[in-house]
């Protein structure tokens, strides 16, 4: 029960603004802005992004910070544990581990990013052509993919590594050749789904040209899927490169990559465990952060999870 003074004049008609009725109380945001805000709210993703940026910065600046480089040997200073001179210690040839680790990280990241980029280009092209042209072309292209999927990725990579001259370029190409299939499938599925959606039909009815439909409607909606998938392709590529180098098929000494470093560290696991730990920690950090970031991105841009 309210105890209020009800005066006669309160019962005069109210002055209402007609626009008040249609007022939407919360500010409008584009899908991108909305997703970005939600991503920033996700503490895990923000931390992961920060750590990644730090690691990337170190990968390029790390070796510069110390006066030692990654390939100079010094047989008088082999197998030093981390100390003031050599912040991460030295390896079996007396090379500065700090430099080697960050140089290795740089190589691993570069390989991964380039491979993922190639992956993206080939995959998106293949997938979108397949989905946009449809019909027989799509069928044939899909059959090819179905056969390719039946072959385990790593096998293809290993075989290709064997026939091509060893080196970074080979590694990248080998990884891309098998990796694009996933992206192609995703892109094709997304475009097919979008093609059938009613907003595309609506655009067509309004007379929008095909080119406009592709540029304005299909591509922006597919970018989400592509970015998120790339967030997972990169760590996958890092893993593949590290794995191959570890079992001896990828990069080899004196070139350094995280896989090579972990392998060298593993060989002296009995004595110089830090040589294994340090690159291991770094690779784990990179992969975990990408994973968290990828998940965060996916959640942030998922329209269903909007409150």
């Amino acid at each position: 029960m309210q105890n209020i003074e009800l005066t006669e004049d309160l019962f005069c008609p109210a002055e209402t603004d007609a626009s008040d009725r249609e007022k939407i109380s919360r500010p409008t945001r584009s899908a991108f802005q909305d997703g970005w805000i939600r991503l920033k709210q996700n503490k895990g993703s923000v931390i992961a992004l920060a750590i990644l940026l730090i690691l990337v910065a170190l990968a390029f600046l790390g070796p510069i910070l110390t006066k030692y480089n990654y390939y100079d040997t010094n047989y008088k200073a082999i197998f030093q544990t981390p100390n003031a001179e050599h912040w991460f210690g030295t390896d079996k040839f007396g090379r500065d581990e700090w430099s080697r680790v960050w140089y290795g990280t740089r190589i691993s990241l570069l390989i991964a990013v380039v491979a993922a980029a190639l992956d993206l280009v080939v995959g998106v092209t293949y997938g979108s052509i397949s989905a946009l042209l449809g019909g027989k072309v799509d069928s044939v292209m899909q059959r090819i993919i179905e056969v390719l999927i039946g072959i385990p990725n790593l096998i293809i990579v290993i075989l290709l590594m064997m026939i091509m001259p060893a080196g970074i370029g080979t590694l990248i190409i080998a990884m891309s050749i098998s990796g694009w299939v996933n992206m192609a499938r995703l892109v094709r599925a997304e475009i097919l789904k979008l093609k059938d959606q009613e907003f595309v039909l609506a655009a067509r009815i309004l007379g929008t040209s095909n080119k406009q439909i592709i540029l304005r409607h299909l591509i922006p909606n597919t970018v989400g899927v592509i970015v998120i998938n790339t967030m997972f392709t990169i760590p996958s590529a890092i893993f593949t490169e590290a794995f191959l180098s570890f079992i001896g098929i990828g990069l080899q000494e004196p070139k350094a990559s995280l896989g090579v470093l972990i392998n060298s560290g593993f060989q002296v696991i009995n004595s110089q465990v830090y040589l294994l730990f340090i690159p291991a920690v770094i690779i784990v950090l990179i992969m975990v952060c990408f994973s968290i970031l990828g998940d965060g991105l996916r959640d942030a841009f998922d329209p269903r999870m909007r409150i």
Partner: protein
Amino acid sequence: MRKYIIKRLVYLVITLLVIATATFFLMHSLPGTPFDEDKISNLSQEQQKQVYASYGLDQPVYIQYFKYLKNIFQGDLGTSTLYTGQSVQSILAARIVPSALVGIQAVLVGLLIGLFLGIVAAYRHNTSMDYLTMVISVLGISVPNFVVAALLQYFFGLKWGLLPVAYWESYASSILPSLALSFGVIAQIARFVRTEMLTVLQQDYILMAKAKGISPVKILLRHALRNSLLPVITILGSITVNILTGSLAVESIYGVPGIGSLFVDTIKANDYSTILGLTLFYSAFYVVVILLIDILYCVIDPRIRLAPSKE
């Protein structure tokens, strides 16, 4: 259903043929010979020719190819050059058991623990149990299996001396490798089951069951589980891949005399015939497993098994 299986079998054969052909021609475009350079140059020209002939390497490529295909159909995968004289099939056969043991154990352990974690995490959404499971699953998926294997070896084997780390001596030798492989499985399954379960728990029929007065435990077991576990079958394929590729590193690290370590050794030694044989084996294995999984899924899901009949 039958048509589907036949179609898949046809794909299987095509895929294998493609792989066999591709690997064959890849091998033959490789530089260098499969033989030890020093030893070969010690032989006279005549003797070299003989050696080549005994391995069938003196004939034109296409003849070698057809012979190769014919041999495969008869189960003959060629002779190894690394393990001189032994047939690839016999080496394979001898090494299957350790790999199978480690692999199957890894899958079983991974399934059990993964399922448990996933279910509990979804049920106790946004509590500490949930976060713990998420952390485990992110780590399990991100940490490369060879890093896990190396770390496990360091801690359990070298530092604390609890379990054997090398040589294949007793059953205990299989524990660490299986454990190392299982991490990835646990992580994948836990995360997947958690996601599925969370979706299922939002469904109307769960609310309906609550409205019927059914207790939470019964709802979990009777309604939620069945609908969440079905899709797990779909990631079994991905898990198989993980185990296959992971076994390469894990077996090498722990000295398990299995197919994975064989693959690594023969690649380093350029033992073409064995590499070919192994590639075929892996691919065939993988494709067959995928097919079995797909059939299994069709059989179990009543929505697919029974054609909808409306009146």
